[in-house]
């Protein structure tokens, strides 16, 4: 199964401020970004759609049962050690069953400093364009050689009122200069982690995370209007523990639990809300998750690994609004996942397979409720080394999985439809990887090439209507694509080195819905060509970097016609960093050539902007 990792120096060499900035450097990933620090950011893997991407933080999956997608803008890269993208699923078998339950997983892991008697950590201040201030603090203390404790706090304040150019006609010959309004952000992310190692192979980790954010939602750029008043207040609290025991070479196991509570309050002042207090509409949402997981892995022979995992969790959602002529639904969902997996490794061949069983039961205060679901879904993968002395591997996988309808799909007022079936994905992948160490021109080289064919069927599609729209399982999307990535590095001498990362994706994601008026048209917001690159040069105490992300043209509507084209863009960034002992200073220029572009139409992205960070390691 294809796995891509960005960690360490590669991670700090991308001008990235949050996880989505990193994710767009993976081959096959399309990031959807509504612009600015507070703009919603999601990732879609290989054209399948963002709701098929599982988001995993420190070993356990994140959740949003209402919309089905996690906003990556809230995850800053401070304190993150690595970001990993798994096509299909992680290859390690000792995993929660939930890790096998998405079409792909974007996983990020927090930093775990090495043992030291002293208090270690980092204090950092970032100042950036548009009145952006971002102080952060990370402290780690080993209470004993076995037990470490760390805390993280990261605060962001930004006006975010960046200038952009609005097009008043399609040729771009008539434009208006505007500034984003109602785009300010205040957020605070704080976290405490504890890690206790009973032995080298047995550990208990515990995490508490609290997140607060109050921000404006500038919304669509509306021609001839600058009015925007929608605000979002979000609070979330999460705690989790994970116990892992790998002491035995016959049987290993892990147990985990998690509680997550998140609330959101949206408000919008508009003259048309004339009967509401202060002309303001207020919506409240609250959701909870209680989650338990257990996983076992055994090694009956030298060649064979068997594993079993069982997860169970409970979700609920409460909503209310002061514009409420509906009885708001209060849905709950109980989910049980069981997975059986086997892996066979023999000389040049690795074969693994797993079968996942999903059971869900839902309740609702309204009479209408989705029926229980029971599904069995398989995954098979293999990897083979064809040449004796070369580190060339051929890999292939097949995965069948689905995403459940979200609570919005099922229960939102008239829009929701409780008879929805899951949206199914089938993925077929064939590829090769090559890795080599040299002593010549290049020191290290890693290449991968994968061709894939994916199908999304029973697609949960919006059926537009009057007076309201609804959702139904219609539609099929077929995606044919190729991901290419190359990593090369060169150690020039003891004081300097150079590294290059490149990725490119070709994908044709097309509507294959029988009888569709847009049959064979390209799916909106899925570029045929996209890619990224990063170049980092280190010399003594200095580090210089250049990186870019490009996307070919996209279509904003179902019709692949000229009027729906969203122009290609290339976003290029540079930085320089100076590190002296414990002190480090970074100056960044983002969107160096001031490209005027939208990732999502009418959600303009910032032009050239600057960021300066100063940090001191304790």
């Amino acid at each position, binding site marked *: 199964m294809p796995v891509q990792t960005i960690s360490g120096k590669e991670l700090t060499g991308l001008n990235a401020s949050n996880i989505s900035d990193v994710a767009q450097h993976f081959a096959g990933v399309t990031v959807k970004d509504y612009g600015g620090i507070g703009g919603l950011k999601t990732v879609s893997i290989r054209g399948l759609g963002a709701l098929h991407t599982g988001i995993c933080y420190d070993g356990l999956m994140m959740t949003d049962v209402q919309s089905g*997608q996690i906003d990556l803008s809230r995850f800053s890269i401070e304190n993150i050690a690595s970001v990993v993208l798994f096509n299909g699923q992680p290859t390690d078998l000792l995993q929660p069953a939930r890790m096998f339950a998405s079409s792909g997983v974007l996983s990020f892991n927090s930093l775990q400093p090495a043992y030291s008697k002293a208090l270690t950590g980092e204090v950092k201040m970032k100042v950036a364009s548009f009145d952006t201030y971002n102080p952060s603090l990370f402290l780690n203390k080993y209470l004993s050689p076995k037990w470490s404790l760390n805390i993280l706090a990261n605060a962001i304040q930004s006006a975010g009122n960046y200038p952009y150019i609005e097009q008043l006609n399609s040729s771009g010959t008539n434009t208006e200069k505007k500034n984003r309004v109602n785009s300010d952000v205040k957020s605070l992310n704080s976290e405490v982690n504890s890690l206790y190692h009973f032995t080298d192979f047995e550990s208990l980790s515990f995490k508490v995370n609290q997140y607060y954010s109050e921000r404006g939602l500038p919304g669509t750029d509306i021609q001839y209007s600058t009015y925007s008043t929608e605000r979002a207040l979000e609070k979330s609290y999460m705690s989790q523990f994970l116990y892992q025991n790998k002491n035995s070479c016959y049987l290993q196991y892990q147990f985990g639990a998690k509680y997550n509570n998140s609330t959101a309050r949206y408000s919008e002042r508009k003259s048309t*809300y004339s009967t509401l207090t202060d002309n303001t*509409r207020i919506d409240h949402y609250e959701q909870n998750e209680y989650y338990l997981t257990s996983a076992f892995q055994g090694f009956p022979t030298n060649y064979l690994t068997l594993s079993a995992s069982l997860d169970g969790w409970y979700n609920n959602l409460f909503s209310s609004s002061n514009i409420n002529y509906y009885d708001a639904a209060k849905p709950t969902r109980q989910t049980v996942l069981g997975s059986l997996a086997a892996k066979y490794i023999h000389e040049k061949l690795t074969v693994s397979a797993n079968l996942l069983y999903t059971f869900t039961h839902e309740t609702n205060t309204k009479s209408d409720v989705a029926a229980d679901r029971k599904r069995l879904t398989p995954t098979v993968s293999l990897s083979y080394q064809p040449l004796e002395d070369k580190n060339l591997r051929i890999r292939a996988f097949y995965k069948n999985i689905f995403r459940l309808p979200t609570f919005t799909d099922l229960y939102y007022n008239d829009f929701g439809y409780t008879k929805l079936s899951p949206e199914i994905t089938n993925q077929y992948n064939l590829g090769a990887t090559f890795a080599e160490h040299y002593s010549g021109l290049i020191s290290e080289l890693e290449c991968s090439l994968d061709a894939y064919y994916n199908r999304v069927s029973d697609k949960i599609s919006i*059926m537009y209507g009057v007076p309201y729209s609804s959702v139904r399982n219609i539609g099929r999307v077929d995606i044919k694509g190729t991901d290419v990535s190359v990593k090369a590095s060169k150690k020039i001498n003891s004081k300097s080195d150079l590294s290059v990362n490149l990725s490119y994706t070709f994908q044709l994601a097309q509507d294959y819905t029988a009888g569709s008026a847009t049959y064979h048209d390209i799916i909106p917001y899925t570029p045929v060509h996209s890619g990224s690159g990063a170049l980092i040069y280190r010399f003594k105490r200095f580090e210089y970097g250049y990186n870019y992300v490009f996307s070919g043209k996209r279509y904003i509507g179902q019709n692949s016609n000229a009027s729906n084209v969203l122009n290609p863009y290339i976003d290029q960034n540079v930085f320089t960093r100076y590190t002296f002992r414990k002190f480090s200073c970074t100056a960044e220029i983002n969107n160096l050539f001031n490209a005027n572009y939208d990732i999502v139409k009418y959600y303009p992205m910032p032009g050239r902007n600057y960021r300066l960070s100063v940090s001191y390691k304790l």
Partner: protein
Amino acid sequence: MKIRKTLPLSLFVCITAFSFTSCKSDDPVDNYNLTNGVVVLNEGKYNGNNASISYYDFDTQKTYSDVFTDKNNRGLGDTGQDMIKYGSKLYIAVYNSSLIEVVDAKTGVSKKSISMVNDSNEPSYPRSLTAANGKVYIVLYDGHVTQLDTTTLALGSKIAVGTNPDCSVISNNKLYVANTGGMAAVMDSTVSVINLSTFTEEKRITVNMNPSTIQADSEGDIYIASNGNYGTIAGKFQRIDATTNKVTDIAVSVRNFCIVDDKAYIYNFSYDANYNVSDKTIAVYDVKNEELLTSSLISTTLDNTPYCIAVDPSTNYIYVGTTDYSTLGKMYCFDSTGTFKYSFATGINPSKVVFITK
């Protein structure tokens, strides 16, 4: 005009992100005038900045897909809600840009763009337009009606009406406004009656919940299509008597209608279990004799969903605009017997038709 329910942010984002489209001609030509044909206002998609005007010329049988941009080198804005012709000008209410565009009815060139704001300088969202006595009456979705002098193009005084007023009609020097309450905690169920001599609200007449389209016949009776609350309270077709103000239910299912020559041309449809549109019909109801003339005038199967209906008073040809809410729409033309004559492409969501004849 359609009642648009507001959606939660997450849903709103996913809908708009995947669906808005723009409709602009690649090759602007501006060497034509609106002299003899059909002018169609295309609502576009909400938050899509793609309201537009299409023009079908009777003489050349040619369609111009984006008159406003051709003539003004800029888009019309977001959500074209209503358009009327009065004198030599077209008046266009652009809802989400909160603008009134005053356009020369022959050349299509904008004479004035009037930003509609309330006393706190916030958008007031123009919703429908009517004209009489040298004034255009602008219904504002924030619960007001204001007036525009058609000579000076200056705004006059403003009065309050019910909650979220939608369509309007003038009869016997009175302006009738349907108050929907579409964005209120409880929906409205009234029609405001405004005396145009004094420009004051005389009364509110209670009708079925969430009234929308409102039209008048030659006797001054007012006809209303209402939507109800989409659940326990169903939509209705009702008449307000011109003299007694008594409200009477009419047993005809109506999504939208227009009255020309004392005939109400009505379209209706329903949704099947797969949320596909079914039972699309055009009915004709005699508003003078109060009888249904036909429940199914046309035999042609319409593509997609009816979105507007209009009748050319000079020919009695019936125009029905259809939409799939995301791609280009279509305008059908039938003669008075329901025989299909021709069709032409429109922009997204064709919402209003104006006839310009020699």
